[in-house]
């Protein structure tokens, strides 16, 4: 059952009603065209109330301890009277399309705390798609009064690029040792990090973590920082013993302060908005294009010709685009 009156969502979210917030996120994530239209109405109404949170992205390979880290940081922030929302993107099975979302089992205290809101979302079969929706979910959380919004994503695919492009601060969690320096995380991820934290620096692992920290520092020094005012630091932390968590949060605040002072903060958000605009335009164009009756009619034939080797890929694409362009000109 889905409410069709935009007022239900807008008023509910602005009142901070959990159920309305949750339903709004469902609406945003829905694949139905009618829901998308409603989403736009709701978002337009909420937009004036957004933008006021610290947006923090967190990534790392499975097993790095993301959820436990978020539990520790989140509990600490709610003690400081912050309103904390967490959006987690979970991978789905390519075969069945279904997914298992168990993040909250590792956030036992935080998920039970009424001051925190945690929403896991299935990535679905297309990773990019859900991340797009996460951006809108951030806005809704802000409108509901949350002043810290964390986005958790598994650092093995492409989703972390989109996440980095929607947050103010992008934290990459890594583990010490295991030989391979970047542990399956693409080198590119390190380039977009605002900070790296070596997690599980506890017990027998403290020394390993310190060594890993030094290694990552060396690696980072060889890259040009994304912003002139911020050199991404490498830290160690333990979500288990709560060490290093404060220092990471301090860095997030320091980053925000320096970026704001230099005017970088607003520039970054504007850039993100521009990227977002171009992305939406791209997606919209594609969607519009493939729905055109002429395209629907011509496409199968051209595909068949390419399969049979009767035409080349380049010629096929050109023919489709040119025909279409002529038709559009004749129309106008």
């Amino acid at each position, binding site marked *: 059952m889905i409410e069709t009156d935009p007022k239900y969502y807008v008023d509910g979210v602005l009142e901070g009603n959990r159920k309305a917030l949750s339903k709004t996120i469902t609406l945003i994530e829905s694949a139905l065209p009618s829901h998308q239209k409603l989403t736009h109405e709701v978002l337009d109404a909420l937009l004036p109330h957004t933008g006021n949170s610290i947006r923090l992205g967190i990534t790392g390979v499975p097993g790095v301890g993301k959820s*436990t880290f978020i539990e520790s940081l989140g509990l600490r922030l709610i003690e400081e009277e912050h309103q904390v929302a967490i959006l987690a993107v979970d991978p789905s099975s390519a*075969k*069945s399309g279904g997914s*298992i979302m*168990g993040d909250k089992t590792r956030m036992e205290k935080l998920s039970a705390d009424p001051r925190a809101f*945690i929403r896991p979302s299935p990535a679905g079969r297309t990773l990019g798609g859900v991340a797009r929706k996460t951006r809108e979910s951030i806005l809704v959380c802000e409108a509901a009064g949350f002043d810290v919004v964390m986005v958790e994503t598994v650092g093995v695919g492409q989703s972390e690029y989109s996440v980095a492009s929607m947050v103010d601060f992008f934290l990459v969690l890594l583990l010490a040792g295991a030989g391979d320096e970047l542990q399956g995380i693409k080198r590119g991820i390190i380039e977009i990090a605002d900070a790296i934290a070596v997690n599980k620096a506890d017990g027998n692992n403290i020394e390993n973590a310190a060594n890993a920290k030094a290694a990552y520092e060396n690696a980072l020094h060889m890259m040009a920082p994304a912003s002139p005012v911020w050199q991404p630091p490498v830290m160690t932390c333990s979500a288990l013993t709560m060490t290093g968590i404060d220092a990471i949060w301090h860095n997030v605040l320091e980053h925000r302060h320096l970026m704001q002072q230099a005017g970088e903060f607003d520039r970054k958000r504007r850039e993100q908005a521009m990227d977002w605009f171009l992305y939406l335009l791209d997606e919209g164009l594609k969607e519009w294009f493939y729905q055109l009756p002429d395209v629907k009619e011509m496409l199968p034939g051209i595909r068949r010709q390419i399969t049979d080797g009767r035409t080349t890929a380049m010629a096929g694409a050109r023919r489709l685009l040119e025909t279409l362009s002529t038709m559009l000109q004749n129309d106008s």
Partner: protein
Amino acid sequence: MAKHPDKKKWAEIAEKELKGKSPESLNWQSPEGITIKPLYTSEDLEGIDFIDSLPGFDPFVRGPRATMYTLRPWTIRQYAGFSSAKESNEFYKRNLAAGQKGLSVAFDLATHRGYDSDHPRVIGDVGKAGVPIDSVEDMKILFNEIPLDKMSVSMTMNGAVLPVLAGYIVAAEEQGVSQEKLTGTIQNDILKEYLTRNTYIYPPEPSMRIVSDIIGYCSEHMPKYNTVSISGYHMMEAGADSVLQTAFTIADGIEYVRAALNAGLDIDAFAPRLSFFFGVGMNFFMEIAMLRAARYLWADLMKQFNPKSQKSLMLRTHVQTSGWSLTQQDPYNNIVRTTLEALAAALGGTQSLHTNAFDEAVSLPTDLSARVARNTQIIIQEESQVTRVVDPLAGSYYVESLTSEIVKKARALIDEVEELGGMTKAIVAGMPKMRIEEAAARRQAKIDQGKEVIVGVNKYKVEDEVPIEVREISEAVRDNQVAWINQIKEKRDAAEVKRCLEAITNCAESGGNLLEVCIPAVRARATVGEISDAMEKVFGRYTATTQCISGVYAGEYQDDEIIVSIRKRTEQFMEKRGRRPRILLTKMGQDGHDRGIKVVATAYADLGFDVDISPMFQTPEEASKMAIENDVHVVGVSSLAGAHKILVPQLIESLKSQGAGDILIVVGGIIPPGDYEFLFNAGVTNVFGPGTMVTDSANQVLNALEKKG
């Protein structure tokens, strides 16, 4: 080289009987990955090094004692406890009068998890799956008129093991029985709790210290007492096959030995007091071979610690028949199943045995079902004559070969655990739990497809089931228990209690033997909850990390029609509603049995659902918060410990009060048929009892969702 019969000749005739198919077509792959052939001969005994061993001698394959049951049969030890200490005590006394030989105490889940009966997190659990023990006063009632110097008592306790063992010691003391006379067993096997049952309190490391403190204290003061019962039973119940059960249990044992050695104890001072606890299921010869193989492996692996006493190599075990093999459907069949399992345990050479009652798939045993269960053993012992010969299956080509196969496969797995740095590390890495859950999902898929037959469930179903009588636990139990705690708290010396509790906290922090400091606290009438809290201040409470496997359930089906058809339904649901059907699976209260919910989670995800899993031990309010935040269509509650009548209505209430009354509720697990109506009236859409095929339940959930629109 011994002469073997000519198998070729046999194969020729067999092929004729098979109308041209090769005899290999009769091979069967057991869940353990062992190929079971249609025929075994003396050839299969080649190279087996224990084939000429004797009972009572290393490697003890043929039994720990030379005479085995020819002198004295195994101990009939029925596990029981429910409602209150007084009711349980009366039940014990009736059973002892009717031929039971040893006691085995089942505690309720509140006690297991270190909560007193008045704690807000245990409202649904008090007295349900065992007896509630809050203070030594309850312990004294539990053993009233049972002389503890004569009766061997086994206590299944792992989480709150210190206050409970101290309570037993003080209850005996106040009966006039001194510690050194006490005989029996404390389970004290914390490692397997992290694998399967989840009735732990503290994280693994401090928990291992508690284990070695108990071993240390008892080896000095209670020489006749078994200090650890290393348990594979719960692994089997969670889905482990015989190889997984054997390997992980033996690996747990090795880990305890190392912990005790590290605490400075002498191997021969404690190793003979370690005992085992295996589960025996329906694969008759496999179960027998498993017990024989386990004895071989233990003797073999213990040699690395250079014990001087042969007793340190000897695996002595208790066995319980499988609870998982029991069905709610056509429940009298369970008597037959239990009989076969009991016979397998006897032929495998167990030292004591619990036989399940036929109604245990739905509730706690009644006096009648408990009598049948007990008599099952007595009939085997006193009517069947199987006790006349030691290890009667020795020399069987099949059983000896199977024993040797299990040894080989289990040893390979133990080596894998050792490579990870021992069982504690392997558990932290999640390896054993994943293996067990994989096995469980595979097996469920086999059962759901009818490839593994369960009579009354997936074959020869009965249309009109006659309901059986079940035992109900009165809801007044908790109120009475709370009033009783308050009464005890009023009378005791508060300053003395405080002093004792502080001593426990100090000992937890700075070292010393924890059991030694818990005993005075129990004497002063400190409660189980207070003593557990005193340690929790230092150790913290452990949070389980839930890992989930995926693809295993559907993989076993190989994209069978039924899987495809449900995937189509979830896909259609998405096309219509804009997202997949989303279900929150949750466990509320202190019931930590999570095999079922894990299997359902992985299967539903394979069928195209989006599945949320809650942390363990939720309150109804916490579960409803999660259902609303995750915006699920359905909440699936798993309940195996009798708390459903209290917790499910509270969950529904909590959802309604937040405007989320439209979320469907389904309940699965051990629910007495008489409670179905109660749950439907409370607003539950479906109840799925034991034996429900996962694919059926998924279709029913989808039906309910579609009906709701």
